[in-house]
């Protein structure tokens, strides 16, 4: 089944076998999946990633902040963010301002880069590139979540001691539901965040469908 110019992997020493595996060409299905991944990266750069909603008795309709890779958007035409900052001043929390989130400058760039890498993998079609992309994305994902948590922690812990109200420092919920004073806070991924979760699945698919040498039909 293997092409004549390729040595039989079984004849290679064990430590070369993995290398052969990584050099393996990807089949068309895996390449399509990589194209999809590239598309997702582009989409994610534009779509809302996460939403924090605050609900209190006098805010039945909720105050919402949506997080994009490049911007912070308050619900109700931006008014919700103004209102949250207004309320936060009572507990001495720093105002949430887009300008303070330096990641909103580099994240769209990073997502674009990822899209390019995914495109390159689809075109070039090597197993090693799938593994690289998977590793890089896992790092990027973990870093982003870590950074998000760090942001939440910092905002909840660096409270102005002279603020009208003194409350115990806290970390707003990263994902899930949490009670903060009179507010119930909900934090959940939006479409962009959910799609982000699909990326490793697609990458695993690209890996899985080309894992057997016999199914490799790509030229290389």
């Amino acid at each position, binding site marked *: 089944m293997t092409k004549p110019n390729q040595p039989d992997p079984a004849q290679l020493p064990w430590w070369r076998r993995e290398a052969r595996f990584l050099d393996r060409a990807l089949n068309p299905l895996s390449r399509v999946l990589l194209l999809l991944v590239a598309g997702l990266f582009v989409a994610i750069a534009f779509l809302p990633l996460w939403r924090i909603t605050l609900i209190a008795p006098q805010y039945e309709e909720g105050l919402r902040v949506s997080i994009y890779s490049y911007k912070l958007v308050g619900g109700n035409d931006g*008014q919700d963010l*103004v*209102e949250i900052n*207004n309320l936060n001043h*009572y507990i001495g929390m720093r105002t949430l301002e887009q300008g303070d989130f330096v990641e909103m400058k580099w994240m769209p760039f990073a997502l674009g880069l990822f899209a390019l890498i995914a495109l390159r993998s689809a075109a070039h079609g090597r197993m090693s590139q799938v593994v690289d992309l998977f590793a890089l994305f896992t790092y990027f994902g973990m870093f982003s979540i870590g950074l998000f948590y760090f942001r939440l922690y910092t905002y909840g812990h660096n409270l102005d001691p002279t603020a*009208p*109200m003194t409350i115990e420092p806290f970390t707003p919920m990263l994902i899930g539901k949490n009670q903060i004073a009179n507010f119930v806070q909900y934090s959940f991924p939006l479409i962009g965040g959910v799609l982000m979760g699909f990326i490793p699945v697609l990458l695993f698919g690209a890996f899985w469908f080309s894992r057997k040498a016999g199914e490799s039909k790509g030229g290389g």
Partner: protein
Amino acid sequence: MKRNRIHYTFVLAALAGALFASGCSDSSTAKKSSSSGKGSPAERSYVAPGEKDDYYLFYSGGHSGQVFVAGIPSMRHIFTIPVFAPSPGVGYGFDDESKQMLGDYTWGDVHHPGLSKTDGLYDGRWLFVNDNANNRVARISLRDFKTKQILGPIPNSSGNHGSSFVTENSEYLLVATRFSVPLPMGRFAPVEEYADEFNGMVSGLKIDAASGDISVGWQILTPPFNWDLGSTGKGPSSGWAFWTSYNTEMAHSKLEVNASQLDRDYAAFVNWKAAAKAVAEGKATMMDGVPMLNPAEVPGVMYFVPVGKSPHGIDVDPSGRWIVASGKLQPTTTVFDFEKVLAAIAAKDFQDEFRGVPVINYDAIVEGEVPVGLGPLHTQYDGKGNGYTSLYIESAVAKWKLPPWTEAEKADLESVIQDKIQVHFNIGHLVIGGSDTRKPYGDWLVAMNKLSKGRNISTGPAQPETSQLIDITGKSMEMIYESYTDPEPHFAQILKADAINPIEVYPKEESEHSHAIWSLGESEIIREPGKVTVKMAAVRSQFGPEKIRATVGDTLVLHITNVEQTSDMIHGFAINGHNLNVIIDPGETKTVTLKLEKTGVFPFYCTNFCSALHQEMQGYLEVAPKGTPTASL
């Protein structure tokens, strides 16, 4: 156990029997349940906490100078819109703009609110009200429920009772005078010369289609009758307006007796389109700056029609064909056929002439005199072919069938009376939503009663007014609920709640105030000789600046912006000891100008509860004595 089973079987058998029986009379039980499906009166008027009413009820506030807003069916008083009287609760009459609008007047007498219309239907843009006392009209915007304009005193117009009647497409707000005086106003003539020297007036106030701004258009001079109530035409009567009068006798004393001598008083049928045209053609003479038509010289503008003794309401039905006038000292209400009116005018079928104004032949245009009961005042329509007339003396509402009538009905007009319901007590006006439009809502009627006579828990000699909610969806009217208001609703308008969508904050981007600021950081104090100007921001829970220093004798100009954009985040601003309370809604900027006449330090504070730290929202106005070195200011 066994016993139980027997019982069980028995019950089952009974049930089966019942089911079988009900199967035979299926339709009748279904009907019964649907009519009782309306629920008890309590259920029908109950609006649970958190739920909303279906309709707005805009009551005139009478001599309170205000407009009350209630909800239907709950009848809960929701809000009061101040119009002609200062109202510290919403800071009306304290800032420069509303002060200027009110002028030197501190009250008004609001009688008949009128909603703006497009194509004969409410368009939800404005509510117009009149001031009987000081001859003014006002426009309230339903976008923010605020008084936007007060026009007047209207020249040559004394006692603006006969308004606010809005034409089909809000072209004009029509006004007629209750009182007659020697004109132009300011001229003296003894009251004994009333018939010759005194005059009344009908005014056409032009409404700007885009802005709603009202301006005095033209006037029509009338004999010194006391014009009472009116309405505007539609359909065949499109372009016409109608007013009743009392005192065709032109008495000037003991009107109670002397104005009640004739069996018929004149109603005025006014072709306002013809009047506007005649003015445009230059047929008017000027009086006190207003183009005025003399109907004797401009034929086709005004006609008189004799109606039952001392009438009050004259109401055009939804089709525009039937004009119903109620003579309050007669037990009947008179129905005129406007198609016959037009025919009579075309044929010059006049029975008389009064000071050059043709009096249309009564017999040629009357459709019938409906024996509704004692003291008929005012008629409203359900849009299903019925009229509802308030009966002051009988303390009741009569429901009766509008023409066309069969010959048998015509022969015995008692037969068109469908129903009568007692109200408590002595009803004046009544209102059905949309009665003055082409399409009345036809489900609720509100009876506005003049006397409550202790139906409420006692409040001493001064008593509230009662209003009663009546369900008119059934064959007979049904009393549902009663509520109380401050004195004193006259007429009202009902508007579907979903017909309007009021704003709850003034959007920052729409702000046009040249001194608006949008953060505490932008606040500014500008000192000029003799004047201190402050651009102030109000935000939870701070004013900026918090300290204003000035010298006694200075003029202080405050431009206060509520920078909030959150619904109901309202701030107030009062300076201790200065008789001043401004209320600033979210996104609003208000300007106050005051002369500082006292030295000392005067705390200012937020009067409208805003936040947990509302109490802390305060600052100081320091007024230094004259001669304080400017360096220390």
